[in-house]
């Protein structure tokens, strides 16, 4: 039964304005929201033309027909694939190879080199040799093949020119900034930062994926600019990833994430995702997001498409799928990152019963028994 006293909780004018698309009309009482919900239900019930299953099926059949050709092949391995899909497959042991000698292995070294582009215009390629680079009088950089450390004092360094570190596909890098902050940089990532922090804030820019352990300094906040967002650090270790949707995962400390005019404060074990203009927050197991900086390959029940996208960046190989349905297979992978991609491919191939064939820097993914030379 309806209680007529509810009427006094309804501003009919406001509701009518909202129904006409007036976004300013907001802040509804629960009565008003019930009314809006009911109104929505009326719209559905009064909808014209009604939805017709006849038309729907006709249209569906037409569209489906176009895609049918791709899906004619059905294999006996379906049962195995199903098992992998339903449960994920946990593989920890490397798989012994029994491949013919003629087959190419995915064991090529990445082709790119780490580049340091300095604010003064110089550009240095980082190779095997350790080198020391002097910037002006105040800053000294010690560079190895996979590490870089800045030392210097703000007093002596002039200007606000930024250095840029470019990590190509296939390589990972670790950097110590002049304030002592440690940054792990994943493949295909660019990091921009000043040689010394002499502004009111410590600003760095990430395009790609990086893990930060920030040296606390309340007087000079640390701000990471990544994707469309800004991360204001309140003493912290966290991972930021701008491949696809910008994802920030906090492992310790506190973090303020701002993007698209929205703001979220993160506690450890929380993550923000900036998607379609919305900054959402969720609680996650942080391990899969940070395992890379500890030298692991860790994926829990992740699609093959996503895993191969990561491997492509991480090993400087391209993947091609013969059958796009394979992209949706899900897999759990947990192993130390091998030096050669081939080792990881063997584990995945065995687990999902799929084949990888390698040609130069391209890996072709197909159902087992297909696509081999």
């Amino acid at each position, binding site marked *: 039964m309806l209680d007529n006293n509810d009427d006094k909780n309804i501003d009919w004018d406001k509701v009518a304005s909202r129904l006409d698309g007036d976004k300013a009309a907001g802040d509804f009482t*629960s009565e008003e929201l019930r009314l*809006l919900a*009911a*109104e929505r239900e*009326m719209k*559905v019930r*009064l909808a014209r033309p009604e939805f017709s299953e006849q038309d729907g099926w006709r249209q569906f059949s037409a569209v*489906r027909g176009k895609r049918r050709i791709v899906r004619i092949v059905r294999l006996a391995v379906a049962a195995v694939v199903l098992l992998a899909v339903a449960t994920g497959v946990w593989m920890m042991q490397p798989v012994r190879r029994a491949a013919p000698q003629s087959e190419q292995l995915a064991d090529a070294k990445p082709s790119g080199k780490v580049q340091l582009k300095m604010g003064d215009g110089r550009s240095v390629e980082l190779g095997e040799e350790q080198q020391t680079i002097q910037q002006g009088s105040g800053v000294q950089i010690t560079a190895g093949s996979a590490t870089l450390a800045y030392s210097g004092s703000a007093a002596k360094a002039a200007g606000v020119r930024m250095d840029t570190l470019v990590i190509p596909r296939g390589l990972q890098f670790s950097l110590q900034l002049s304030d002592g902050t440690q940054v792990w940089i994943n493949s295909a990532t660019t990091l921009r930062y000043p040689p010394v922090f002499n502004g009111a804030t410590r600003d760095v820019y990430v395009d790609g994926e990086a893990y930060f352990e920030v040296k606390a300094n309340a007087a000079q906040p640390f701000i990471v600019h990544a994707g469309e967002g800004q991360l204001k650090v309140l003493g912290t270790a966290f991972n930021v990833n701008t491949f696809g949707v910008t994802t920030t995962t906090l492992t310790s400390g506190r973090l303020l994430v701002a993007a698209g005019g929205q703001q979220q404060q993160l506690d450890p074990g929380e993550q923000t995702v900036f998607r379609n203009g919305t900054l959402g927050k969720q609680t996650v197991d942080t391990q899969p997001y940070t395992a890379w900086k500890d030298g692991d390959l860790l994926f829990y029940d992740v699609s093959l498409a996503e895993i191969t996208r990561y491997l492509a960046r991480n090993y400087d190989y391209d993947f091609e799928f013969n059958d796009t349905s394979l992209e949706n297979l899900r897999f759990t992978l947990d192993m130390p990152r091998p030096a050669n991609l081939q080792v990881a491919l063997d584990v995945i191939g065995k687990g999902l019963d799929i084949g990888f064939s390698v040609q130069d820097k391209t890996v072709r993914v197909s159902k087992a028994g297909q696509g081999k030379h």
Partner: protein
Amino acid sequence: MHQSRSGKAVTFEEQFRDYYVLLCRAAYYIVLDQDAARDIVQDFFLYCWNKRHDIRITRDFKSYALRAIKNASLRYLEKSGKVQLEEIKVIEAMSEFFPEDDGREDDARTAALWAAVSRMPEQRRKVFLMSNQEGLKYKDIAERLGISINTVKTQIKLALQFLRKECGWMMKLLTPVIGLIYVG
């Protein structure tokens, strides 16, 4: 294989025909755009078709499909950028209650709503249907009927007040959920 509620295997087409309209209505409830609703449902069935050998639905198909359709519809709304996040949350909460479980009951309710609509004075009914069925703005309704926007708005308010009394069943159940979101 696809399972009907009784556990009997049904063909893909049967399943499509059984649920198409229901799913379109569920999508429409959220996106309020008929073409978008049809696209969302079609995409869902294409997904099912492509995956028909790889996925098994262990719960019954209807609840799985409704969940998938609602999620896809909410994502569509989010992407469209036309609706604010707060409102999407409200719509999401409301969508828990529509459509309701019993199909026959559902038809009876639609009939009851139409009966109530037909009992309204002619101009009010016209205005109400132009707004809710054709999706016209108040301004356009005013122009078409040669009346003022204020009159349109008044008629809408009166129609809502009337239908709220006549179709009280549409109002039930929502309070706890909405309350949770806004208070909690």
